[in-house]
């Protein structure tokens, strides 16, 4: 396994880690992207099968729920899923919109931000956001952090799983299994630059064919993604089985994990320090018997010997004084 450890040089962000990633000598790595051209997709699920085959995943044989989508949801054994939607536009024209749902590999990953386990989620210099189950503690924060509802926690080992963009294949110079197998070329893989160019070409093509609102889905709210879509109706991403129209890391996640995280930690540390310095400056509230003033201390010691009646009488006297 050691031999397969990816060079730390190529990790640009890791969850819950203060250590800076090496910044120098990282120029050689190009950002990659997977382009999913929904307008070319026939929903054959080859990608879904190839993904499971490559990643040694076998979900349960489920049942038919009355739709073509199957399994019904992503799971620790289903990293990606074809979601089918029979969409009728205002004119009543039917379109069968089929979207491959999988991790978007955000440039600013919400999961990574939310993850408390050092190194359980990493972002490689090529843009892939990968889960490292070895370090995962199963807290599920990535689920809350993800703007696309992707990670799933295994019931078997309580660890988080999701599409790796076949980081193992990409590291060895291959394309992801889904991209390789795609029969119609609806899934393509290359540098993000090339994929954006290809996407732009396809967008023009679709516009020529009457899809006025064709466009690329590369949402800026998460800093762009390394899985991008070409949509016939980019103005309405939600018709593609609820693809979020403006995904971003939830403000709640920011409030939880953003600046408050170090701030709270600092306040906690400072409050402990403040106590220490208060003690150093003002000193303790000594036991009355330990009063530096020997008279007072003696009086207090004497008080302890008194009976309650006497004590009360003394108190009354003090009060009268």
């Amino acid at each position, binding site marked *: 396994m050691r031999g397969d450890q990816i060079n730390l040089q190529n990790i640009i962000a890791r969850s819950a880690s203060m250590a800076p990633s090496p910044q120098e000598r990282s120029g050689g790595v190009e950002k990659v992207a997977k382009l999913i051209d929904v*307008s*070319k*997709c*026939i*929903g*054959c*699920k*080859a990608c*879904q*099968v190839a993904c*499971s*085959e490559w990643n040694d995943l*076998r*979900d*349960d*044989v*489920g*049942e*038919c*729920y*009355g*739709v*073509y989508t*199957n*399994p019904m949801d992503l799971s620790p054994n*289903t990293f990606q899923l074809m979601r089918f939607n*029979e969409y*009728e536009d205002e004119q009543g024209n*039917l*379109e*069968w919109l*089929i979207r491959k749902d999988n991790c978007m590999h955000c440039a600013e990953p919400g999961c990574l931000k939310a993850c408390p386990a050092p190194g359980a989620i990493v972002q490689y210099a090529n843009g892939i956001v990968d889960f490292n189950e070895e370090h995962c503690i199963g807290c599920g924060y990535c689920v809350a952090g993800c703007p696309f509802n992707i990670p799933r926690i295994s019931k078997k080992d309580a660890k988080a799983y999701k599409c790796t963009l076949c980081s193992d294949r990409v590291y060895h110079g291959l394309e992801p299994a889904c991209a390789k197998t795609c*029969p*119609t*070329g*609806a899934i393509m893989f290359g540098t993000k630059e090339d994929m954006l160019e290809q996407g732009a070409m396809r967008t023009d*093509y679709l516009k020529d*064919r009457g899809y006025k609102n064709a466009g690329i889905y590369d949402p800026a709210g998460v800093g762009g993604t390394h899985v991008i879509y070409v949509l016939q109706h980019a103005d309405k991403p939600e018709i593609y089985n609820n693809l979020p129209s403006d995904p971003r890391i939830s403000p709640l996640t920011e409030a939880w994990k953003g600046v408050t995280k170090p701030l709270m930690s600092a306040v906690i540390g400072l409050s402990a320090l403040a106590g220490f310095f208060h003690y150093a400056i003002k000193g303790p509230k000594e036991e009355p018997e330990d009063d530096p003033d020997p008279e007072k201390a003696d009086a207090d010691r004497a008080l302890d010997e008194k009976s309650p009646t006497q004590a009360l009488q003394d108190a009354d006297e003090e009060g009268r004084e």
Partner: protein
Amino acid sequence: MAGLAPTYGRGAMTNHWVDISNANLVLSMGGNSAEAHPVGFRWVMEAKEKNNAKLISIDPRYTRTGAVADYEVNIRTGTDIVFLGGLINFLLETDQIQHEYVRAYTDVSLIVKEEFGFHDGLFTGYNPDENTYDKSSWSYEFDDQGYVKRDDTLQHPRCVYQLMRQHYSRYTIDMVENVCGIPSQNVQEVWNMIAETAVPDKTMTILYALGWTQHSIGAQIIRTGAMVQLLLGNTGLPGGGVNALRGHSNIQGLTDLGLLSNLLPGYMRLPSAEEQDYQGYIKKRAKQPLLPGEVSYWKFYERFHVSLMKAWYGDAAQADNNWCYDWLPKLTEPLYDVIYTFERMHKGKLTGYFCQGFNPLASFPDKNKTSEALAKLKYLVVMDPLAVETAEFWKNYGELNDVDSSQIQTEVFRLPTTCFAEDDGSIVNSARWLQWHWKAAPPPGEARPDVSIMAGLLHRLQRMYREEGGAFPDPILNLTWQYSNPEDPGAEELAMEYNGRALTDIYDSNRNIRRRKGELLDDFGMLQADGSTSCGCWIYAGAWTEDGNQMARRDNADPFGIGMTLGWAWAWPMNRRILYNRAAARPDGTPWGPEKRLVWWNGHRWVGADIPDFPDASPPSAGVGPFIMNQEGVGHFFGGSMMMEGPFPEHYEPFESPIVGNPLHPNNPQAVNNPAARVFPDDRARFGTAKEFPYAATTYRLTEHFHFWTTHAKLNSIMQPQKFVEIGESLANELGIKEGNKVRVSSKRGYIEAVAVVTKRIKPLQITGQTVHQVGIPIHWGFKGVAKHGFLTNTLTPAVGDANTQTPEFKSFLVNVEKI
């Protein structure tokens, strides 16, 4: 494919997968190419991108092909001839045909016999008692030299052009709307798109599959499509043709090798019982040209036949015993197809049956009848890599297979075989490419290759016949068996055997030696009728030559950039990739357009990106036709006597139709259904009517599954785990069915239960003023395998076949649907 051969000369896919990307328009009809052949469909998407091609999907349902189509139309199942006939009418009446092509490369100018006619839905010569035609009038007029008379002006009232025009004049756009259920505006738009490819340098390709074949008029539907492609001048050109997308990985190979009741390898035909005379048998099949100078390649039939006999019988086959002609079994029926065989089995006339990787209980119509028939056998042998349903037809699986084992006396043997990953050999894809593959691992347990099982049986029979004697052992005892390992002949040796070799030194006409004794042949041009060559399958000659295994070639270079990769594997015939490619050039030998360059005349010979499907030194001036297998050298609009129902395709309703009568012939009860179809009385009694079973059903495959195999594969079972039926929203509302409900679908022959997929993708159609609902039933799932067990779809289907091929009518029948 029985509709193509009568039109073009060969029954195979005309073009090939990568070539689809050269099309300007793709018509996916009678098939759901995206789902059934996703990887082949890539080249449709390439055409869209590369040529800005459009894709039209015509299907009873909005399918996954429809999801990426530019134009999506829903048609009533089984009415394709009406749509295509209407298109022919439209093209002829608006004169949007490729004139130069049609005149030079088709039979439009040929003159048909005076006796030929068509009246009220029937052609001349019909015998209603036998449901057959006397086809003697379905022929040409001949001149004194035996050649067909022609009128190049096309004015003769009985020239094919005029007859065709007249025949399809009844197929108006209103008729199409009424019968097919497609609004006439949509019909017109599709026709206009198609008509644009009538120009010389634009092509449409047609992709079809079982959606055309599995009808009682299947072969005629295909023929209509082929005729459209002749009219538009789209056959033989890159990006054109009629592409039969075959189902199984080697169904093309098995058909080429003649594993059908009436065939011998290479599309040669078994003799009928009347053909007692060898010379007569050859003469009938060695078809001579009907126009001067044409190729009519079947004229060399005897060479192919004798070489086969030498491959099978070796020295036992000699000229003086007519190359063992008498040893061949002779036919009485035109076909001993599966419907016929199971009818006889059901009547108790069969003793034994072998299923080699074939699952008839799941695949044949009327499962309950199939099951009863199998129970009447004495022995059944199933050779298969998988535990299939057929091998357990005797076992009770509750409602899914409700039988009483103790009452079934069939002795069943289940023999484990290897699968593709565990043997060497070649398979033929739909585009006729013979591709070699290699063994990667040993089979599980004791599983054996089929070859070794067959050899084992043969050797035991040979021993018994030698020891005990018995019925006519000659062919069994004399079968050539020159294999290094007689118990398990190697794939290489068998491939060389079907390729063919010289049995003596062979000389050309100048007495130069062409092949020495024992050497492998280069191509079928070397075959001899005198017994000096042997060849197990003449069209495969050239697959394994002295240069080695051509099927294993892996050079994917594409020097012309149009996807012809001639160095990859090997295609029959002669490594030609596009059939009839002479037609890709004008009569003068120049390409129709710069985009459509394929083969052309360079002044000395035919050259180009493909191997010419033509005598390569025959100059354009000789005027030889491009359809070299046809006796006239041209493409057939007029099918002559080759089809059972008539020379021109005519629409007849499915045997179970949701409407009453045939709207084209409302007054002739004989012309409602295919008049030439063979229906057994028992099967006819099991047909339902629209009164009891009001919905038109069609069966199909899903892209996630392959027949009944992948329900044994976990990955595929995960993707589509359970049997379902597709019901349109409006019918579902009518019946109170919701997505995910369990429904019972029944026909006259039985019922199945499945989950309802309620969809917007199936819409009710308006047919002759009545609303017709269609129901979609995938064929997959059975009572074996790792997917959820389910009912076999073929419980519902009727046992009636196409009149030419007996392909069962799986695509159009009647059902009722109830919520349970």
